[in-house]
């Protein structure tokens, strides 16, 4: 359950969403992507109300929303390249999707995206044969190929080891800064936030409790406290 969650993200901003598990981070993401329906309230994305869109409008709007999931969510029996090409699906005609015949231009974007995440050598490897970190990088490459203007990342590093987590987050941040993409990324490891985000939003028990620039982050209650208060709510 979410309530009283209200915030605005400026274009190009990288925002970390933190909060204990069960705080409603995933629900918030699903509402923003309209994979779940919010009962009430307003969600504007790039100036348009997501909640009021019909399915055709929603499909068009979703091209601008890249979603990175905790569980990568790749098509397991397809190659890394095919998974990245999926990012182009919103813009290609149906027959091309069905025949899996993409134009050279789309393929080039997909290869460039794989190169950006350092997986060009793995383009033909089946997704389920890649490591967890590699799979998450393929998922990011898919969002890159999609050329979305916003990236929503729901605990993208929760299932990765610390080294892979740092590399995936710095990749996300660099991409955001290079291309002016807006990023909202949830994390539960608070120590990863400095050096990644410009701003921190803290969610607890479905409510927004802190919204602050990163330079003030150290004066926030220590990470331990954010979690410790959970029981009182």
């Amino acid at each position, binding site marked *: 359950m979410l309530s009283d969650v209200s915030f605005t993200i400026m274009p190009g901003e990288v925002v970390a969403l933190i909060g204990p598990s069960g705080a409603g981070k995933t629900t918030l993401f699903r509402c923003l*992507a309209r*994979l779940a329906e919010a009962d009430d309230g307003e969600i504007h994305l790039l100036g348009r109300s997501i909640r009021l869109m019909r399915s055709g409008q929603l*499909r*068009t*709007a*979703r*091209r601008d*929303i*890249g*979603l990175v*999931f905790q*569980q990568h*969510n*790749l*098509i*397991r*029996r*397809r190659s890394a390249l095919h998974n990245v090409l*999926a*990012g*182009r*699906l*919103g*813009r290609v005609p*149906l027959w091309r*999707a*069905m025949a*899996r015949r993409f134009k050279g231009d789309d393929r080039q974007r997909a290869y460039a995206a794989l190169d950006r995440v350092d997986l060009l050598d793995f383009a033909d490897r089946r997704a389920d044969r890649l490591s967890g970190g590699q799979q998450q990088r393929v*998922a990011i490459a*898919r969002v890159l190929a*999609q050329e979305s203007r916003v990236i929503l990342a729901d605990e993208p590093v929760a299932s990765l080891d610390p080294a892979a987590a740092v590399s995936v987050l710095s990749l996300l941040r660099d991409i955001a800064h290079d291309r002016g993409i807006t990023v909202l990324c949830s994390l539960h490891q608070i120590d990863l936030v400095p050096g990644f985000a410009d701003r921190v939003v803290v969610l607890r028990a479905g409510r927004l409790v802190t919204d602050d620039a990163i330079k003030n982050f150290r004066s926030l209650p220590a990470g331990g406290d954010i979690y410790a208060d959970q029981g009182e709510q």
Partner: protein
Amino acid sequence: MLALLVGVARYAACFHYAEIDLGRLWVGLPKLLHWTAQAWPPDLSELDLLLFRAAQTVAMATIGTSLAVLIAAPLCLLAARNVIPESFVYHPARWLLDLLRGVDSFVFALLFVAAVGLGPFAGVLGIGLHSAGSIAKLWSEAIETIEPGPLEAVAMTGAGRLKLVSYALLPDVLPALLSTSLYIWEFNIRSSTVLGLVGAGGIGQDLKNAVDLLDFRSVATIILIILAMVTAIDRTSAWLRRRLI
């Protein structure tokens, strides 16, 4: 406790309804043994015709299963909740496939013999309709058990439902779909051996004629041909399954 008693009573009643009578079996058994003795050696004089009928039986099951696959392909998508969440499509589709599955291919064949005349074509239509229901049900269940994540991820690229199905869903479920179709094909080979009883072609017709004429040497030949045919198809199916999946 009461439920148990009612259950036992109903089960006992089944014996009555099924007219279980061991005495009649005792009297009939020597007859069977006598016939079995008479069935040797098998009558091979009409082997050519019987082999043709066997080929007809395999053809009937194969084309019937293909027809079923064609009907099941759209139907299984309409009857899968994760593809079509809309109840006004999903429920009628489920209802239709339960109807097709509920009527045996034997019964369909009986109706088609009346409609299109005697012969294997009626059998093909009967198998096609009944198996379409079975295949669509098994397929839609295979589709419903796949993880929602990859589909959501592809939906987030702005892809519509057909793109979603062809690009993200099919690759994941294809091995299961193929395996199911082969299983139904094997099943149809066995069930089409009796479709001749209602005049729908194949070797079943010869079996019925031979039994009616008490020609047990021909019956023996037919049963041996059916066994060889079913075994050969099972092997072929297993081989195909290894190759394709």
